[in-house]
Structures are given as structure tokens and as C-alpha cells.
């Protein structure tokens, strides 16, 4: 049975699992929605924090309120306490409460509350997504799905990337965070009511997340844990840097067809379908390809990614569409790298995957994300405030790209080493 599963692609594994677990779809919807809300939350959080920083630096009227927003940076450290919370209250309780907070906070954002409230809610989503990410990944690896270890983690990668696809669709339709911004019949008098349109979508999504989380809680009941003595814990910082750089590049450039178009003097109407196509391509690759783990192919992919970033940053306008298309297609490599990082962080520690390692990893990944994002933001806007950063934007993106490629390749080497040890 086990050998048969190994020969199957992910789609076939999912088919098989669906036969034994009728609630598998609901099970997949939970991390899908949680990741989607996280993506939207981060995009809400940065503008709030950015404005608050200026108020505090220039001590504008009411700057103490902005100080409160800056304090939300503490929330990035919340996932560090996952292990402690799980020991005290139990994994399942923490998991369900985290998802409930994510669902409610995302709903709160849709209510167009004050900037301070929106930023705090977004910060809460980021913090509790870190906890959910940790527990979900651990439980997924240790659950009784009829799938081998790699397939299980691939399922997570699938929903993780799927959330970015949904985000891309929402942004295509709404050109922004959510579809409420589509205002075909915008009327100045009705404006304050029309801005709440997204609630029609958001309320069911939040309810769905909570209901499915409760319904599928039994599916992620772990088997008894066995700690393998021979498997040393590899340095998690490698994956944390990789994950941070992945998020940094995705959130600051790769997710925005309009940004790619602006750098390359091309049309975002052309780039957007290519971007969507690239995300679909990687999802299909994960679903239907039987061999994903050839290190030479991965190295070639990553060299292409690096080439795309360099060409995009330094030759963008000179070659316009060829570079814009290369850069956009490279989104698929970005997601493949994310898959390798998630695979590495989950499997090379199996059996006995440790919550504190995963939570450290996601915490530091998020910290790298916020640090790099603000280095980039302050080098590309209001650059006169920090003259040392002036014009450094492309360099910071390039460093992010190099680090991601390096960390992914190291993660792949670790994976191969782990496979070799396991076979031996």
C-alpha cells in the first residue's frame, strides 16, 4: 500500500484520501482561507504601520496613538509562544481559538474601522496565522491521511499557493484588497454604504473558516509521536530566512502585475493573465508531476529566477516585454521554492517534528519579512528621510532574491541528505 502511494502523483493521492476521508475538502479549506486572510492582513498591516512610523518620527498631533500601532510589532513574536500555549491549553484549543481570532479579525477589517483598529486586527491575524501554520503543519505531518510524508506536505503547499491564486483573482476583479472596491455605480451619497459590500462575501468566508475548523478537528489528531535519535535537527534559521525572503519578494513585487508592468514599461493588462497562469502552472506541477525533487533542475530554475530579478531590476525598461514575461513566469519558481522550504522544514524533522522549532521558524520568517519590507519601503519612498537608503530599493530586492535562492538550494541539499539517510 505504502509503495503504491509513493508512485502516485499528488492528485491521485488526494483521490485516494478523499475515499477514506469525506471531509478532506473541508480540511483543505481551513489553511486555504487562513492563508488568504494572512495575505490580505499583511497588505493591510504595512500601510498602517508605515503611516504610524512617520507620525511618531515627526511627532505629529496624536502621535501617541501611532505609538500603539508600532507596539503591534510585538505581535510578530506571538508565534514563539505556540509551544507554551499548546502545553498549557492543548493544541486543539489553541488551533481553534487562533482560527476564530483570524476569522473575526478579518471580518473586523472589512468593517472599515479606524486605522489603528485595522492595523491591530491585521497584526492579530499575522500573529495567529503563525500559530496556525505551526500547528497545522505539525498535525498534517503526523496525521493518518493515506499519503506518504512528502505528499502530505505537498497538500499543504497546494493550499498555501492556492490562497495566493485566490488573492490574485480577487485583486484582478477589485484591483485591490477586496472586491468592495469595484464601484461601477459609485454614487457620492451612497458611498459610505457601498464600502461595506465586501461583507456579503467576508461574513460567509469567516463563518466557513470557523465551521470547517471545528468540523475537521478530528482529522488532525496526531499519531503517537516517536522521536528519532539519529535525525539531527538542522538549523531552522535557514528556512526562516528563506521563508522571510519568499514573503518579502512576493509581497513587494511578484504579486503585483502592475508593479512588474511599471518597472518594465509594459501593460499590466497583459502581465496579469500571465501571472495568474504562472500560479496555476505551479499548482498543476505540484498536482500532476511525479518527480519534483531533482536538485539540478531546481538549480536551473533558481538561476533563471535570479536572472529574471537582475534583468527586471536593472534592464527592465530596455527590454520591456521579454523581461516582464520572464519575471512574471518566475513567480512559479518562487512558489516552487516556497514548497521546498515548507517541505524541508516539515520532513527533515520527522518523526518528532517539534512545535517550538516550527514556531521559531515562522516567527523569524515573519520578522525577516517585515524588516526587508521596511528597508525596501524606506529606500523607495520618502527617501530623503533616510538618505543612506536612497536608491537602494533594487539592491535590497536583489539581496532578497539571492538569499531566497541560496536558502532554497541549501534546503534542497538538506532534503536530499535526509532522503539518503532514510534510505540507508
Amino acid at each position: 500500500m505504502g509503495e503504491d502511494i509513493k508512485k502516485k502523483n499528488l492528485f491521485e493521492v488526494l483521490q485516494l484520501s478523499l475515499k477514506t476521508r469525506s471531509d478532506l475538502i473541508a480540511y483543505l479549506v481551513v489553511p486555504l482561507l487562513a492563508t488568504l486572510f494572512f495575505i490580505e492582513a499583511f497588505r493591510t498591516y504595512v500601510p498602517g504601520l508605515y503611516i504610524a512610523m512617520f507620525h511618531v518620527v515627526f511627532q505629529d498631533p496624536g502621535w501617541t496613538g501611532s505609538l500603539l500601532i508600532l507596539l503591534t510589532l510585538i505581535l510578530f513574536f506571538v508565534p514563539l509562544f505556540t509551544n507554551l500555549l499548546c502545553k498549557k491549553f492543548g493544541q486543539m484549543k489553541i488551533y481553534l481559538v487562533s482560527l476564530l481570532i483570524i476569522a473575526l479579525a478579518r471580518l473586523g477589517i472589512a468593517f472599515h474601522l479606524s486605522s489603528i483598529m485595522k492595523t491591530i486586527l491585521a497584526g492579530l491575524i499575522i500573529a495567529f496565522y503563525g500559530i496556525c501554520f505551526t500547528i497545522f503543519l505539525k498535525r498534517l505531518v503526523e496525521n493518518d491521511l493515506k499519503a506518504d510524508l512528502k505528499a502530505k506536505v505537498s497538500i499543504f503547499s497546494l493550499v498555501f499557493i492556492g490562497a495566493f491564486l485566490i488573492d490574485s483573482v480577487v485583486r484582478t476583479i477589485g484591483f485591490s484588497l477586496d472586491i468592495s472596491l469595484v464601484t461601477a455605480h459609485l454614487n457620492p451619497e451612497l458611498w459610505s454604504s457601498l464600502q461595506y459590500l465586501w461583507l456579503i462575501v467576508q461574513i460567509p468566508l469567516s463563518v466557513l473558516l470557523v465551521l470547517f475548523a471545528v468540523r475537521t478537528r478530528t482529522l488532525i489528531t496526531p499519531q503517537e509521536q516517536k522521536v528519532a535519535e539519529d535525525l539531527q535537527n538542522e538549523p531552522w534559521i535557514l528556512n526562516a530566512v528563506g521563508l522571510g525572503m519568499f514573503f518579502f519578494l512576493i509581497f513587494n513585487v511578484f504579486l503585483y502585475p502592475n508593479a512588474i508592468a511599471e518597472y518594465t514599461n509594459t501593460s499590466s493588462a497583459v502581465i496579469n493573465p500571465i501571472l495568474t497562469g504562472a500560479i496555476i502552472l505551479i499548482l498543476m506541477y505540484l498536482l500532476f508531476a511525479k518527480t519534483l525533487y531533482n536538485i539540478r533542475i531546481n538549480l536551473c530554475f533558481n538561476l533563471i529566477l535570479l536572472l529574471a530579478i537582475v534583468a527586471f531590476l536593472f534592464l527592465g525598461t530596455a527590454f520591456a516585454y521579454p523581461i516582464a514575461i520572464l519575471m512574471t513566469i518566475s513567480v512559479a519558481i518562487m512558489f516552487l521554492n516556497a514548497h521546498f522550504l515548507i517541505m524541508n522544514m516539515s520532513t527533515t524533522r520527522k518523526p518528532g517534528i517539534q512545535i517550538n522549532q516550527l514556531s521559531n521558524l515562522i516567527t523569524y520568517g515573519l520578522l525577516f519579512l517585515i524588516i526587508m519590507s521596511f528597508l525596501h519601503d524606506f529606500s523607495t519612498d520618502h527617501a530623503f528621510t533616510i538618505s543612506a537608503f536612497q536608491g537602494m530599493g533594487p539592491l535590497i530586492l536583489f539581496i532578497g532574491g539571492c538569499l531566497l535562492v541560496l536558502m532554497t538550494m541549501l534546503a534542497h541539499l538538506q532534503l536530499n541528505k535526509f532522503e539518503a539517510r532514510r534510505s540507508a
Partner: protein
Amino acid sequence: MMALNRRTLLIILLLIPLVISIVYAAIPIQVTRPTFNATHQVKFLTYNIHFGVGMDDKLDLERIVQNILVEDPDIIGLQEVENGRITSQGVDMAQWIARALGMDYYYYPAVNEHAFGVALLSRYPIINITAYQLPTIQLERVFLHAAIQLNATYILNVFITHLGLEDDNTTAQIEFILSKTNAVIGPKVMMGDFNLHNDTPQIQNVSLFFTDTAVAFNNTYPGDTFPSWPEPTPGERIDYIFATNYTAILDSHVVTDMVSGVNAAWEYGSDHLPVTTTLQY
């Protein structure tokens, strides 16, 4: 057979986003063209949108659009417009506002990475655009020159800018701008955030070649434009609409009432107030 069906179904499901993005790419902005020949009037509006962030720190493009719709202008000059930056949720602001208002648009960023741009939105066809980086010793600024076709024979030159903050910057920038505008023949409208009070030598210099429409229409100080809040008096007048070769100024004012019956910070989409002028040609 069942597996094949499920596979096909899944592939179709995955392809739906692609179809959506292709369809959306194919849908052009629906522009409702005004009939210039009927009235020979054009309504202009200049608005520094502060990256879509109001005095309540909320990033809200809907509110910006609502603020603009209070006047429903034909040609708009926007300043502090961003594109694809996470600090403004990655939105292409000019495109988004243009879509919401049903207008043609052109965006030009001042800095390589898309910050601090100006945008032109127009219900009339934009037939030519020239963009310039202004001379600067500080933050990069830009200047747009657009030729807008009002009817088969009437071409209007529209200039949009957002000047720097220091005197050294603005003096050189005004000289550069006037060298470009003076080289153009025909009716001209220049609007934007000049970061200068109307008694400064730089604005006096502009007034040698252009009419300050708000002053000319009101015969008095037309009111401040920055900051938009707190009430009752904003504080500075730094946003202008200048014009030449028109027949009459039918209206010109600072837009202060965004939602009737409301007097609160949340009305205002930006830290600036918009200025509007209606000209007869």
C-alpha cells in the same frame, strides 16, 4: 473514467482564474465622452491625494473617488499617486480611480520605484503626453504635458505638476516649467500642488504668464487647500489651477464639503483639499 472526470474538472476549476484575468484584461475602461460642442465648457480639478490616505490615516480610494465625484470634473490632475507599493496595498491608484470614474488616464512616477507620481485623468481623449523629471536637489518631482482633444479642431494643453519643498527646488522647477509651457502655443491649463503660497516670487512669476483662476473668479483670496482638516481653517493655499486663452471662468473654488450635513475628518480622503475650476472656451 471517474478519475478522468475529476481530473478534467479540477483542471477546469484551476483555469477559471485565468479566464477571469483574461476577461478583465480585455475589458477597457468605459469612458463617457462629454459633448464639448454643446456647452464649450470644461471642468478641471486638481487633487493631491496623499497616497489615498486621509487625515484619519485611513487608506481609502473609494473616499478619494467620492471626493472627486462631488464635483464630477472632466479633466483631473492628481498628485502623490502610487503604483504597486505595499505601503498602499500594491494598488495601481491611477488605474483604479480612472476605472471608478470612467476616464482615460496616464500615470508618471517621479521616482524609479513608482512613488510620488502624478496622474492625468480625462473624459476627453488624450492624444499626446510628454513627461519630464524636474530639476531637483531633493526628492524627485515630475511635470506632465498632455494634449487633450476637446473636439475635432480644439486641442487643449494640460500641464500637471507637484513641486518640491525647498525654495532652491521650486525656483529652478518653476523656471523649467515655464520654459516648457511658454514654448507651447494655444490654450493652456496648468494645475497641481505647487507647495508655494500665492505671494511667493515663484507663483508671481507663474502669474505673469497664467491666470490664477481661483483668484480671478473670486476677486479675493479663495481659501486654503492644506491641510484638509481640522476645520474651520486649513492653513495654506498651495494647490492651484492656472489657465490661459479661455473665454470666461464660470466657477472656481476649493472643495470643502465632501458629504453634505457632515463635518468630520472622515469626509476627507487626503490631507489636501481639491480645487476645481470650470472654464468656457
